Protein backbone atom coordinates (compact mmCIF):
# COMPACT_ATOMS: atom_id res chain seq x y z
CA UNK A 1 0.00 0.00 0.00
CA UNK A 2 1.53 3.30 -1.00
CA UNK A 3 1.15 5.93 1.63
CA UNK A 4 0.35 9.43 0.44
CA UNK A 5 1.92 12.23 2.42
CA UNK A 6 -0.47 13.61 5.02
CA UNK A 7 -0.62 17.01 3.27
CA UNK A 8 -1.84 15.60 0.00
CA UNK A 9 -4.47 13.55 1.85
CA UNK A 10 -5.70 16.68 3.52
CA UNK A 11 -5.89 18.53 0.20
CA UNK A 12 -7.86 15.73 -1.33
CA UNK A 13 -10.09 15.72 1.71
CA UNK A 14 -10.92 19.41 1.60
CA UNK A 15 -11.65 19.13 -2.11
CA UNK A 16 -13.98 16.21 -1.43
CA UNK A 17 -17.67 16.57 -0.65
CA UNK A 18 -18.77 17.29 2.87
CA UNK A 19 -20.13 14.14 4.49
CA UNK A 20 -21.18 15.60 7.83
CA UNK A 21 -21.30 19.12 9.12
CA UNK A 22 -22.28 20.55 12.48
CA UNK A 23 -22.99 24.28 12.71
CA UNK A 24 -23.13 26.36 15.87
CA UNK A 25 -24.16 23.51 18.16
CA UNK A 26 -25.34 24.62 21.60
CA UNK A 27 -26.30 22.55 24.59
CA UNK A 28 -26.63 23.38 28.28
CA UNK A 29 -27.36 21.07 31.21
CA UNK A 30 -28.97 23.45 33.67
CA UNK A 31 -26.34 26.09 34.39
CA UNK A 32 -23.51 24.07 32.86
CA UNK A 33 -22.81 24.88 29.23
CA UNK A 34 -21.49 21.81 27.45
CA UNK A 35 -21.54 23.20 23.92
CA UNK A 36 -21.31 26.93 23.21
CA UNK A 37 -21.44 27.07 19.43
CA UNK A 38 -19.30 24.17 18.32
CA UNK A 39 -18.82 23.47 14.61
CA UNK A 40 -17.29 20.50 12.80
CA UNK A 41 -16.82 19.55 9.16
CA UNK A 42 -16.14 16.02 8.01
CA UNK A 43 -15.37 15.30 4.37
CA UNK A 44 -15.98 12.11 2.50
CA UNK A 45 -13.31 9.52 3.24
CA UNK A 46 -11.63 11.72 5.83
CA UNK A 47 -10.45 10.78 9.32
CA UNK A 48 -10.81 13.68 11.75
CA UNK A 49 -9.44 13.56 15.27
CA UNK A 50 -11.59 15.44 17.76
CA UNK A 51 -9.34 16.67 20.55
CA UNK A 52 -9.74 18.60 23.77
CA UNK A 53 -9.24 18.38 27.47
CA UNK A 54 -11.80 16.69 29.73
CA UNK A 55 -14.97 18.77 29.79
CA UNK A 56 -14.19 20.49 26.48
CA UNK A 57 -17.46 19.21 25.02
CA UNK A 58 -16.23 16.38 22.79
CA UNK A 59 -18.49 13.77 24.32
CA UNK A 60 -21.57 15.98 24.15
CA UNK A 61 -20.86 16.83 20.51
CA UNK A 62 -20.51 13.15 19.68
CA UNK A 63 -23.64 12.28 21.60
CA UNK A 64 -25.52 14.92 19.58
CA UNK A 65 -24.36 13.38 16.29
CA UNK A 66 -25.33 9.96 17.63
CA UNK A 67 -28.84 10.94 18.69
CA UNK A 68 -28.31 10.39 22.42
CA UNK A 69 -28.36 14.12 23.22
CA UNK A 70 -30.71 16.63 21.59
CA UNK A 71 -29.13 20.01 20.87
CA UNK A 72 -30.68 23.19 22.26
CA UNK A 73 -29.86 24.85 18.94
CA UNK A 74 -27.64 24.36 15.92
CA UNK A 75 -27.77 22.30 12.74
CA UNK A 76 -26.41 18.90 11.78
CA UNK A 77 -26.29 18.03 8.08
CA UNK A 78 -25.49 14.67 6.51
CA UNK A 79 -24.61 14.85 2.79
CA UNK A 80 -26.07 18.34 2.64
CA UNK A 81 -29.42 17.32 4.07
CA UNK A 82 -30.56 18.41 7.52
CA UNK A 83 -30.45 15.55 10.02
CA UNK A 84 -33.13 15.31 12.69
CA UNK A 85 -32.09 12.79 15.34
CA UNK A 86 -34.53 11.84 18.07
CA UNK A 87 -32.84 8.62 19.14
CA UNK A 88 -29.72 6.50 18.58
CA UNK A 89 -31.86 4.33 16.30
CA UNK A 90 -32.38 7.36 14.00
CA UNK A 91 -28.62 7.86 13.72
CA UNK A 92 -28.06 4.19 12.92
CA UNK A 93 -30.79 4.34 10.28
CA UNK A 94 -29.03 7.34 8.69
CA UNK A 95 -25.80 5.35 8.35
CA UNK A 96 -23.95 6.75 11.39
CA UNK A 97 -22.40 4.11 13.67
CA UNK A 98 -20.60 4.74 16.94
CA UNK A 99 -18.12 2.86 19.09
CA UNK A 100 -18.61 4.22 22.57
CA UNK A 101 -15.95 4.82 25.14
CA UNK A 102 -15.20 2.00 27.56
CA UNK A 103 -16.18 -1.08 25.58
CA UNK A 104 -19.79 -0.78 24.55
CA UNK A 105 -20.56 -4.47 24.30
CA UNK A 106 -22.89 -6.83 26.13
CA UNK A 107 -20.62 -9.09 28.18
CA UNK A 108 -23.32 -11.70 28.61
CA UNK A 109 -23.95 -12.18 24.88
CA UNK A 110 -21.92 -14.00 22.24
CA UNK A 111 -19.78 -12.38 19.58
CA UNK A 112 -22.37 -12.73 16.83
CA UNK A 113 -25.18 -11.60 19.19
CA UNK A 114 -23.22 -8.43 19.90
CA UNK A 115 -22.39 -7.94 16.25
CA UNK A 116 -26.03 -8.08 15.10
CA UNK A 117 -27.75 -6.54 18.13
CA UNK A 118 -30.76 -4.49 17.03
CA UNK A 119 -30.40 -5.80 13.46
CA UNK A 120 -31.48 -9.40 13.93
CA UNK A 121 -33.58 -10.96 11.21
CA UNK A 122 -36.61 -12.83 12.52
CA UNK A 123 -39.00 -15.31 11.04
CA UNK A 124 -41.89 -15.03 10.47
CA UNK A 125 -41.67 -11.30 10.07
CA UNK A 126 -45.19 -10.46 11.15
CA UNK A 127 -44.35 -11.66 14.66
CA UNK A 128 -41.90 -8.76 15.02
CA UNK A 129 -39.56 -9.16 18.00
CA UNK A 130 -41.29 -12.43 18.90
CA UNK A 131 -40.19 -14.00 15.62
CA UNK A 132 -37.52 -16.70 15.69
CA UNK A 133 -33.82 -16.09 15.20
CA UNK A 134 -31.54 -18.33 13.18
CA UNK A 135 -28.22 -18.97 14.89
CA UNK A 136 -26.71 -20.55 11.80
CA UNK A 137 -27.56 -17.61 9.59
CA UNK A 138 -26.24 -15.15 12.18
CA UNK A 139 -22.90 -16.93 12.43
CA UNK A 140 -22.66 -16.89 8.62
CA UNK A 141 -23.29 -13.13 8.65
CA UNK A 142 -20.52 -12.68 11.21
CA UNK A 143 -18.05 -14.72 9.14
CA UNK A 144 -18.82 -12.75 5.98
CA UNK A 145 -18.03 -9.45 7.67
CA UNK A 146 -15.29 -10.76 9.93
CA UNK A 147 -13.04 -11.87 7.10
CA UNK A 148 -13.23 -8.39 5.55
CA UNK A 149 -12.42 -6.76 8.90
CA UNK A 150 -9.52 -8.99 9.91
CA UNK A 151 -11.24 -10.33 13.04
CA UNK A 152 -11.96 -13.73 11.49
CA UNK A 153 -9.99 -15.52 14.22
CA UNK A 154 -12.77 -14.66 16.70
CA UNK A 155 -15.35 -17.43 17.08
CA UNK A 156 -18.94 -16.15 16.68
CA UNK A 157 -20.39 -18.35 19.39
CA UNK A 158 -17.96 -17.30 22.11
CA UNK A 159 -19.30 -15.25 25.02
CA UNK A 160 -17.76 -11.82 24.71
CA UNK A 161 -17.36 -11.30 28.47
CA UNK A 162 -14.63 -13.92 28.52
CA UNK A 163 -12.56 -12.27 25.80
CA UNK A 164 -9.68 -9.83 26.22
CA UNK A 165 -10.24 -6.06 26.00
CA UNK A 166 -8.73 -5.88 22.55
CA UNK A 167 -10.85 -8.68 21.13
CA UNK A 168 -13.97 -7.13 22.60
CA UNK A 169 -13.14 -3.72 21.20
CA UNK A 170 -12.42 -5.31 17.82
CA UNK A 171 -15.95 -6.74 17.82
CA UNK A 172 -17.40 -3.33 18.78
CA UNK A 173 -15.45 -1.66 15.98
CA UNK A 174 -16.43 -4.42 13.54
CA UNK A 175 -20.08 -3.87 14.44
CA UNK A 176 -19.85 -0.15 13.74
CA UNK A 177 -17.86 -0.56 10.55
CA UNK A 178 -19.92 -3.36 9.04
CA UNK A 179 -23.18 -1.45 9.26
CA UNK A 180 -22.07 2.17 8.86
CA UNK A 181 -22.88 3.53 5.44
CA UNK A 182 -21.61 7.09 5.92
CA UNK A 183 -19.86 7.92 9.19
CA UNK A 184 -18.09 5.97 11.94
CA UNK A 185 -17.53 7.67 15.30
CA UNK A 186 -14.93 6.21 17.67
CA UNK A 187 -14.84 7.55 21.23
CA UNK A 188 -11.43 6.65 22.67
CA UNK A 189 -11.32 3.25 20.99
CA UNK A 190 -7.88 2.40 22.39
CA UNK A 191 -8.23 3.80 25.93
CA UNK A 192 -8.49 0.40 27.63
CA UNK A 193 -6.08 -1.51 25.41
CA UNK A 194 -2.50 -2.69 25.43
CA UNK A 195 0.07 -1.80 22.80
CA UNK A 196 -0.52 -4.65 20.38
CA UNK A 197 -4.27 -4.51 20.72
CA UNK A 198 -4.29 -0.75 20.07
CA UNK A 199 -2.18 -1.37 17.02
CA UNK A 200 -4.70 -3.78 15.55
CA UNK A 201 -7.60 -1.38 16.13
CA UNK A 202 -5.71 1.56 14.58
CA UNK A 203 -4.86 -0.48 11.50
CA UNK A 204 -8.54 -1.32 11.16
CA UNK A 205 -9.49 2.36 11.46
CA UNK A 206 -6.88 3.51 8.92
CA UNK A 207 -8.49 1.33 6.28
CA UNK A 208 -12.06 2.64 6.73
CA UNK A 209 -11.82 5.38 4.05
CA UNK A 210 -11.24 2.59 1.50
CA UNK A 211 -14.81 1.58 2.20
CA UNK A 212 -16.09 5.10 1.51
CA UNK A 213 -16.53 5.91 5.19
CA UNK A 214 -15.69 9.11 7.04
CA UNK A 215 -14.39 8.81 10.58
CA UNK A 216 -14.42 10.95 13.72
CA UNK A 217 -12.04 9.68 16.36
CA UNK A 218 -11.68 10.98 19.90
CA UNK A 219 -8.38 10.17 21.58
CA UNK A 220 -6.04 11.45 24.27
CA UNK A 221 -3.11 9.64 22.73
CA UNK A 222 -1.35 12.02 20.31
CA UNK A 223 0.76 9.24 18.79
CA UNK A 224 -2.42 7.39 17.87
CA UNK A 225 -3.90 10.59 16.45
CA UNK A 226 -0.85 11.13 14.26
CA UNK A 227 -1.01 7.54 13.05
CA UNK A 228 -4.59 7.57 11.84
CA UNK A 229 -5.98 11.09 11.43
CA UNK A 230 -5.85 13.39 8.40
CA UNK A 231 -6.94 16.46 10.31
CA UNK A 232 -7.39 17.40 13.95
CA UNK A 233 -10.10 19.66 15.36
CA UNK A 234 -9.52 21.04 18.84
CA UNK A 235 -12.33 21.95 21.25
CA UNK A 236 -12.15 24.07 24.37
CA UNK A 237 -15.00 25.19 26.63
CA UNK A 238 -17.68 23.97 24.26
CA UNK A 239 -16.29 25.63 21.15
CA UNK A 240 -14.14 24.47 18.28
CA UNK A 241 -11.04 26.64 18.74
CA UNK A 242 -8.74 25.46 15.98
CA UNK A 243 -7.74 22.81 13.52
CA UNK A 244 -4.56 21.46 12.03
CA UNK A 245 -3.48 19.12 9.27
CA UNK A 246 -1.97 16.10 10.95
CA UNK A 247 1.47 14.92 9.95
CA UNK A 248 4.41 13.30 11.68
CA UNK A 249 5.83 15.41 14.50
CA UNK A 250 2.86 17.69 15.26
CA UNK A 251 2.20 16.02 18.61
CA UNK A 252 3.59 18.94 20.60
CA UNK A 253 1.64 21.52 18.60
CA UNK A 254 -1.55 19.55 19.16
CA UNK A 255 -0.99 19.40 22.90
CA UNK A 256 -0.28 23.12 23.00
CA UNK A 257 -3.45 23.82 21.10
CA UNK A 258 -5.51 21.62 23.45
CA UNK A 259 -4.13 23.45 26.48
CA UNK A 260 -4.52 26.84 24.78
CA UNK A 261 -0.92 27.99 25.32
CA UNK A 262 -0.02 28.85 21.69
Amino acid sequence: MSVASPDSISNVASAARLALSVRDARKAYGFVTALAGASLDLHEGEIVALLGDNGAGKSTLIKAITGIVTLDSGDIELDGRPLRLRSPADARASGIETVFQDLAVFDNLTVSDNFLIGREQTWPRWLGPLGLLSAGQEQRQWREHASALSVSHVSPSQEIGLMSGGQRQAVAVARAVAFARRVVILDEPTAALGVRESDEILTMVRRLPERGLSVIIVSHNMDHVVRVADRAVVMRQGRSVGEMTVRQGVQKDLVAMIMGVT
Partner: protein
Amino acid sequence: MEAHVDIAGKSSETAAGRRDYLSVLLWLLQAGPIIILVTLVVAFGLLAPHFISVRNLQNLLAQSAIVCALGLGQFLVILVRGVDVSVGSVIALSVVTVATLTGVDQPSSVALVIYPLVGLIVGLINGFLIVKGGIPQPLVVTVAMLGIVAGVALLISGGNTLVGVSPAVHWLANGKVLGIPAGALMVLVLAGLFWLMLRRTQWGRWLYAVGGNPDVAQWVGLPRDRLIMSAYAICGTTAGIAGMLYHGRTGSASPLSGIGYELDAITAVVVGGASLFGGRGSITNVLFGALIIATIRSGLQQLDVSPFWSSVAIGIGILLALELDVLRKHIETRIRTLRARQVSQ
Protein backbone atom coordinates in the same frame (compact mmCIF):
# COMPACT_ATOMS: atom_id res chain seq x y z
CA MET B 1 18.40 -14.37 25.53
CA GLU B 2 17.57 -18.04 25.17
CA ALA B 3 16.74 -18.30 28.85
CA HIS B 4 14.47 -15.29 28.49
CA VAL B 5 12.50 -16.92 25.69
CA ASP B 6 12.21 -20.05 27.80
CA ILE B 7 10.74 -18.16 30.74
CA ALA B 8 8.26 -16.34 28.51
CA GLY B 9 7.14 -19.62 26.97
CA LYS B 10 6.64 -21.23 30.36
CA SER B 11 4.65 -18.36 31.82
CA SER B 12 2.27 -18.35 28.88
CA GLU B 13 1.84 -22.09 29.30
CA THR B 14 0.90 -21.73 32.95
CA ALA B 15 -1.45 -18.87 32.07
CA ALA B 16 -3.25 -21.17 29.62
CA GLY B 17 -3.31 -23.90 32.26
CA ARG B 18 -4.77 -21.60 34.87
CA ARG B 19 -7.36 -20.43 32.37
CA ASP B 20 -8.48 -23.98 31.61
CA TYR B 21 -8.78 -24.66 35.31
CA LEU B 22 -10.83 -21.50 35.78
CA SER B 23 -13.02 -22.41 32.79
CA VAL B 24 -13.84 -25.75 34.39
CA LEU B 25 -14.69 -24.00 37.65
CA LEU B 26 -16.96 -21.61 35.76
CA TRP B 27 -18.69 -24.51 34.04
CA LEU B 28 -19.22 -26.19 37.43
CA LEU B 29 -20.79 -23.01 38.80
CA GLN B 30 -23.16 -22.85 35.83
CA ALA B 31 -24.15 -26.49 36.26
CA GLY B 32 -24.42 -25.97 40.04
CA PRO B 33 -28.22 -26.07 40.50
CA ILE B 34 -28.72 -29.49 38.88
CA ILE B 35 -25.74 -30.91 40.80
CA ILE B 36 -27.15 -29.59 44.09
CA LEU B 37 -30.64 -30.89 43.28
CA VAL B 38 -29.42 -34.41 42.45
CA THR B 39 -27.20 -34.47 45.55
CA LEU B 40 -30.11 -33.39 47.78
CA VAL B 41 -32.50 -35.96 46.31
CA VAL B 42 -29.94 -38.76 46.70
CA ALA B 43 -29.05 -37.68 50.26
CA PHE B 44 -32.66 -37.45 51.44
CA GLY B 45 -33.43 -40.69 49.61
CA LEU B 46 -30.73 -42.48 51.63
CA LEU B 47 -31.67 -40.83 54.94
CA ALA B 48 -35.46 -40.94 54.75
CA PRO B 49 -36.94 -44.26 53.58
CA HIS B 50 -40.15 -42.79 52.16
CA PHE B 51 -38.61 -39.79 50.45
CA ILE B 52 -38.27 -41.44 47.04
CA SER B 53 -41.79 -42.81 46.83
CA VAL B 54 -44.22 -42.06 43.99
CA ARG B 55 -46.60 -40.40 46.39
CA ASN B 56 -44.02 -38.13 47.94
CA LEU B 57 -42.48 -37.15 44.60
CA GLN B 58 -45.96 -36.37 43.20
CA ASN B 59 -46.60 -34.22 46.22
CA LEU B 60 -43.26 -32.51 45.86
CA LEU B 61 -43.92 -31.65 42.20
CA ALA B 62 -47.43 -30.39 42.90
CA GLN B 63 -46.15 -28.20 45.73
CA SER B 64 -43.33 -26.74 43.72
CA ALA B 65 -45.58 -25.93 40.72
CA ILE B 66 -46.77 -22.70 42.35
CA VAL B 67 -43.23 -21.52 43.13
CA CYS B 68 -42.10 -22.59 39.64
CA ALA B 69 -44.82 -20.49 38.01
CA LEU B 70 -43.87 -17.49 40.15
CA GLY B 71 -40.18 -18.10 39.47
CA LEU B 72 -40.61 -18.03 35.68
CA GLY B 73 -41.92 -14.46 35.74
CA GLN B 74 -39.65 -13.36 38.57
CA PHE B 75 -36.68 -14.52 36.51
CA LEU B 76 -37.53 -12.13 33.66
CA VAL B 77 -37.66 -9.23 36.11
CA ILE B 78 -34.39 -10.18 37.81
CA LEU B 79 -32.86 -10.64 34.34
CA VAL B 80 -33.43 -6.91 33.67
CA ARG B 81 -31.95 -5.97 37.07
CA GLY B 82 -35.28 -5.59 38.83
CA VAL B 83 -37.22 -7.49 41.45
CA ASP B 84 -40.95 -7.89 42.04
CA VAL B 85 -42.08 -8.56 45.60
CA SER B 86 -45.75 -7.82 44.86
CA VAL B 87 -46.35 -11.33 43.43
CA GLY B 88 -47.49 -12.81 46.74
CA SER B 89 -50.34 -10.36 47.05
CA VAL B 90 -51.18 -10.79 43.35
CA ILE B 91 -52.04 -14.38 44.29
CA ALA B 92 -54.48 -13.05 46.89
CA LEU B 93 -55.99 -10.47 44.54
CA SER B 94 -56.47 -12.90 41.63
CA VAL B 95 -58.06 -15.52 43.88
CA VAL B 96 -60.40 -13.04 45.53
CA THR B 97 -61.32 -11.36 42.25
CA VAL B 98 -62.27 -14.66 40.64
CA ALA B 99 -64.28 -15.77 43.66
CA THR B 100 -66.16 -12.47 43.77
CA LEU B 101 -66.82 -12.20 40.02
CA THR B 102 -67.78 -15.78 39.17
CA GLY B 103 -69.00 -17.06 42.48
CA VAL B 104 -67.68 -20.31 43.85
CA ASP B 105 -70.45 -22.78 43.25
CA GLN B 106 -70.93 -21.98 39.54
CA PRO B 107 -68.41 -23.96 37.51
CA SER B 108 -67.02 -21.40 35.13
CA SER B 109 -64.08 -21.62 32.80
CA VAL B 110 -64.05 -17.83 32.33
CA ALA B 111 -62.12 -17.87 35.60
CA LEU B 112 -59.15 -19.38 33.81
CA VAL B 113 -58.69 -16.08 31.97
CA ILE B 114 -59.35 -13.83 34.94
CA TYR B 115 -56.45 -15.01 37.13
CA PRO B 116 -53.68 -14.12 34.63
CA LEU B 117 -55.54 -10.98 33.57
CA VAL B 118 -55.53 -9.62 37.14
CA GLY B 119 -51.81 -10.37 37.33
CA LEU B 120 -51.16 -8.70 33.98
CA ILE B 121 -52.83 -5.49 35.13
CA VAL B 122 -50.78 -5.34 38.35
CA GLY B 123 -47.61 -6.16 36.37
CA LEU B 124 -48.28 -3.37 33.87
CA ILE B 125 -48.76 -0.89 36.71
CA ASN B 126 -45.46 -2.05 38.29
CA GLY B 127 -43.64 -1.71 34.98
CA PHE B 128 -45.17 1.67 34.23
CA LEU B 129 -44.22 3.09 37.63
CA ILE B 130 -40.64 1.83 37.38
CA VAL B 131 -40.03 2.91 33.76
CA LYS B 132 -42.11 6.08 33.42
CA GLY B 133 -42.37 7.07 37.06
CA GLY B 134 -38.62 7.56 37.16
CA ILE B 135 -38.27 5.71 40.46
CA PRO B 136 -34.92 3.93 40.24
CA GLN B 137 -35.68 1.41 43.00
CA PRO B 138 -37.87 -1.45 41.71
CA LEU B 139 -37.77 -3.03 45.17
CA VAL B 140 -39.44 -0.05 46.84
CA VAL B 141 -42.01 0.37 44.06
CA THR B 142 -43.07 -3.26 44.28
CA VAL B 143 -43.09 -3.19 48.10
CA ALA B 144 -45.58 -0.35 47.83
CA MET B 145 -47.60 -2.37 45.31
CA LEU B 146 -47.45 -5.38 47.64
CA GLY B 147 -49.25 -3.31 50.26
CA ILE B 148 -51.73 -1.75 47.85
CA VAL B 149 -52.66 -5.01 46.14
CA ALA B 150 -53.03 -6.85 49.46
CA GLY B 151 -55.29 -4.01 50.66
CA VAL B 152 -57.43 -4.12 47.53
CA ALA B 153 -57.81 -7.90 47.97
CA LEU B 154 -59.08 -7.29 51.51
CA LEU B 155 -61.43 -4.53 50.32
CA ILE B 156 -62.93 -6.66 47.51
CA SER B 157 -63.49 -9.64 49.78
CA GLY B 158 -64.53 -7.60 52.80
CA GLY B 159 -62.02 -9.74 54.67
CA ASN B 160 -64.08 -12.90 54.12
CA THR B 161 -62.89 -16.23 52.80
CA LEU B 162 -65.12 -17.79 50.13
CA VAL B 163 -64.89 -21.56 50.18
CA GLY B 164 -65.04 -23.44 46.86
CA VAL B 165 -63.38 -23.39 43.47
CA SER B 166 -64.40 -24.17 39.89
CA PRO B 167 -63.85 -27.83 38.87
CA ALA B 168 -61.48 -26.93 36.02
CA VAL B 169 -59.18 -25.07 38.40
CA HIS B 170 -59.48 -27.82 41.00
CA TRP B 171 -58.42 -30.40 38.42
CA LEU B 172 -55.47 -28.29 37.21
CA ALA B 173 -54.14 -28.04 40.75
CA ASN B 174 -54.89 -31.59 41.96
CA GLY B 175 -55.45 -33.78 38.89
CA LYS B 176 -52.86 -36.05 37.33
CA VAL B 177 -51.93 -36.97 33.77
CA LEU B 178 -50.16 -40.34 33.58
CA GLY B 179 -49.35 -40.00 37.24
CA ILE B 180 -47.79 -36.57 36.87
CA PRO B 181 -49.56 -33.65 38.60
CA ALA B 182 -51.43 -31.56 35.99
CA GLY B 183 -50.22 -28.30 37.53
CA ALA B 184 -46.59 -29.39 37.21
CA LEU B 185 -47.19 -30.34 33.57
CA MET B 186 -48.81 -26.98 32.85
CA VAL B 187 -45.84 -25.16 34.41
CA LEU B 188 -43.45 -27.35 32.40
CA VAL B 189 -45.20 -26.39 29.14
CA LEU B 190 -45.10 -22.77 30.21
CA ALA B 191 -41.39 -23.09 30.99
CA GLY B 192 -40.82 -24.53 27.51
CA LEU B 193 -42.55 -21.52 26.01
CA PHE B 194 -40.44 -19.17 28.12
CA TRP B 195 -37.26 -20.97 27.11
CA LEU B 196 -38.19 -20.60 23.43
CA MET B 197 -38.99 -16.92 23.82
CA LEU B 198 -35.82 -16.13 25.77
CA ARG B 199 -33.37 -18.17 23.73
CA ARG B 200 -34.77 -18.13 20.23
CA THR B 201 -36.53 -14.79 19.72
CA GLN B 202 -35.30 -11.24 19.26
CA TRP B 203 -37.30 -10.12 22.30
CA GLY B 204 -35.51 -12.66 24.48
CA ARG B 205 -32.06 -11.66 23.29
CA TRP B 206 -32.88 -8.00 23.84
CA LEU B 207 -34.05 -8.79 27.37
CA TYR B 208 -30.67 -10.39 28.12
CA ALA B 209 -28.99 -7.38 26.49
CA VAL B 210 -30.89 -4.87 28.65
CA GLY B 211 -30.00 -6.87 31.75
CA GLY B 212 -26.36 -7.14 30.71
CA ASN B 213 -25.87 -3.45 30.04
CA PRO B 214 -28.87 -1.08 30.15
CA ASP B 215 -26.88 1.94 28.95
CA VAL B 216 -25.44 0.25 25.90
CA ALA B 217 -28.89 -1.16 25.16
CA GLN B 218 -30.20 2.37 24.89
CA TRP B 219 -27.20 3.56 22.88
CA VAL B 220 -27.65 0.90 20.25
CA GLY B 221 -31.32 1.81 20.02
CA LEU B 222 -33.12 -1.07 21.74
CA PRO B 223 -36.58 -0.18 23.15
CA ARG B 224 -35.28 -0.45 26.71
CA ASP B 225 -38.32 0.89 28.55
CA ARG B 226 -40.77 -1.30 26.68
CA LEU B 227 -38.59 -4.35 27.29
CA ILE B 228 -38.47 -3.70 31.04
CA MET B 229 -42.23 -3.14 31.13
CA SER B 230 -42.82 -6.41 29.29
CA ALA B 231 -40.81 -8.26 31.94
CA TYR B 232 -42.96 -6.87 34.79
CA ALA B 233 -46.17 -7.48 32.82
CA ILE B 234 -45.25 -11.14 32.27
CA CYS B 235 -44.15 -11.49 35.91
CA GLY B 236 -47.59 -10.28 37.01
CA THR B 237 -49.25 -12.70 34.60
CA THR B 238 -47.37 -15.72 35.93
CA ALA B 239 -48.26 -14.60 39.47
CA GLY B 240 -51.93 -14.72 38.36
CA ILE B 241 -51.37 -18.27 37.06
CA ALA B 242 -49.75 -19.16 40.39
CA GLY B 243 -52.89 -17.73 42.03
CA MET B 244 -55.00 -20.15 40.00
CA LEU B 245 -52.96 -23.14 41.21
CA TYR B 246 -53.08 -21.81 44.78
CA HIS B 247 -56.86 -21.45 44.60
CA GLY B 248 -57.18 -24.98 43.24
CA ARG B 249 -54.99 -26.47 45.96
CA THR B 250 -56.55 -24.67 48.92
CA GLY B 251 -60.09 -24.84 47.52
CA SER B 252 -60.93 -21.47 49.01
CA ALA B 253 -60.41 -17.80 48.25
CA SER B 254 -58.83 -16.03 51.18
CA PRO B 255 -57.61 -12.41 50.95
CA LEU B 256 -54.57 -13.59 52.91
CA SER B 257 -53.53 -16.10 50.22
CA GLY B 258 -49.98 -16.22 48.97
CA ILE B 259 -48.30 -14.39 51.84
CA GLY B 260 -44.56 -15.08 51.79
CA TYR B 261 -44.57 -16.64 48.33
CA GLU B 262 -42.63 -13.69 46.88
CA LEU B 263 -39.63 -14.82 48.94
CA ASP B 264 -39.86 -18.38 47.63
CA ALA B 265 -40.04 -17.04 44.07
CA ILE B 266 -36.98 -14.82 44.46
CA THR B 267 -35.14 -17.63 46.25
CA ALA B 268 -35.89 -20.08 43.43
CA VAL B 269 -34.45 -17.66 40.88
CA VAL B 270 -31.34 -16.84 42.92
CA VAL B 271 -30.65 -20.42 44.02
CA GLY B 272 -31.13 -21.32 40.35
CA GLY B 273 -28.05 -19.23 39.66
CA ALA B 274 -29.57 -16.10 38.08
CA SER B 275 -27.49 -13.03 38.82
CA LEU B 276 -28.90 -10.07 40.71
CA PHE B 277 -26.42 -8.04 38.65
CA GLY B 278 -28.71 -8.81 35.70
CA GLY B 279 -28.38 -10.48 32.34
CA ARG B 280 -27.50 -13.98 33.57
CA GLY B 281 -29.41 -17.16 34.23
CA SER B 282 -31.61 -19.69 32.50
CA ILE B 283 -35.19 -20.91 32.71
CA THR B 284 -34.17 -24.53 33.35
CA ASN B 285 -32.09 -23.45 36.35
CA VAL B 286 -35.06 -21.51 37.76
CA LEU B 287 -37.05 -24.76 37.72
CA PHE B 288 -34.16 -26.53 39.45
CA GLY B 289 -34.05 -23.69 42.00
CA ALA B 290 -37.74 -24.13 42.79
CA LEU B 291 -37.29 -27.89 43.07
CA ILE B 292 -34.31 -27.43 45.41
CA ILE B 293 -36.48 -25.40 47.80
CA ALA B 294 -39.30 -27.93 47.67
CA THR B 295 -36.82 -30.79 48.18
CA ILE B 296 -35.25 -29.17 51.25
CA ARG B 297 -38.71 -28.52 52.78
CA SER B 298 -40.06 -31.97 52.04
CA GLY B 299 -36.85 -33.80 52.95
CA LEU B 300 -36.48 -32.13 56.33
CA GLN B 301 -40.15 -32.83 57.00
CA GLN B 302 -39.62 -36.52 56.19
CA LEU B 303 -36.68 -36.56 58.62
CA ASP B 304 -38.95 -35.09 61.32
CA VAL B 305 -36.77 -32.01 61.58
CA SER B 306 -38.63 -28.99 62.90
CA PRO B 307 -39.98 -26.91 59.95
CA PHE B 308 -38.29 -23.89 61.56
CA TRP B 309 -34.99 -25.34 60.42
CA SER B 310 -36.05 -25.36 56.78
CA SER B 311 -36.30 -21.54 56.76
CA VAL B 312 -32.78 -21.41 58.16
CA ALA B 313 -31.53 -23.92 55.56
CA ILE B 314 -33.17 -22.02 52.70
CA GLY B 315 -31.83 -18.70 54.00
CA ILE B 316 -28.31 -20.12 54.06
CA GLY B 317 -28.95 -21.43 50.55
CA ILE B 318 -29.74 -17.90 49.32
CA LEU B 319 -26.57 -16.46 50.85
CA LEU B 320 -24.46 -19.25 49.37
CA ALA B 321 -25.99 -18.71 45.94
CA LEU B 322 -25.27 -14.97 46.12
CA GLU B 323 -21.66 -15.55 47.13
CA LEU B 324 -21.22 -18.06 44.31
CA ASP B 325 -22.49 -15.41 41.90
CA VAL B 326 -19.85 -12.99 43.16
CA LEU B 327 -17.27 -15.74 42.72
CA ARG B 328 -18.47 -16.27 39.13
CA LYS B 329 -17.93 -12.59 38.32
CA HIS B 330 -14.48 -12.77 39.83
CA ILE B 331 -13.52 -15.85 37.80
CA GLU B 332 -14.75 -14.23 34.59
CA THR B 333 -12.56 -11.20 35.22
CA ARG B 334 -9.57 -13.46 35.89
CA ILE B 335 -10.12 -15.37 32.65
CA ARG B 336 -10.32 -12.07 30.76
CA THR B 337 -7.03 -10.77 32.17
CA LEU B 338 -5.29 -14.07 31.51
CA ARG B 339 -6.53 -13.95 27.90
CA ALA B 340 -5.29 -10.38 27.50
CA ARG B 341 -1.90 -11.32 28.94
CA GLN B 342 -1.63 -14.20 26.48
CA VAL B 343 -2.49 -11.94 23.53
CA SER B 344 0.22 -9.47 24.50
CA GLN B 345 2.85 -12.20 24.86
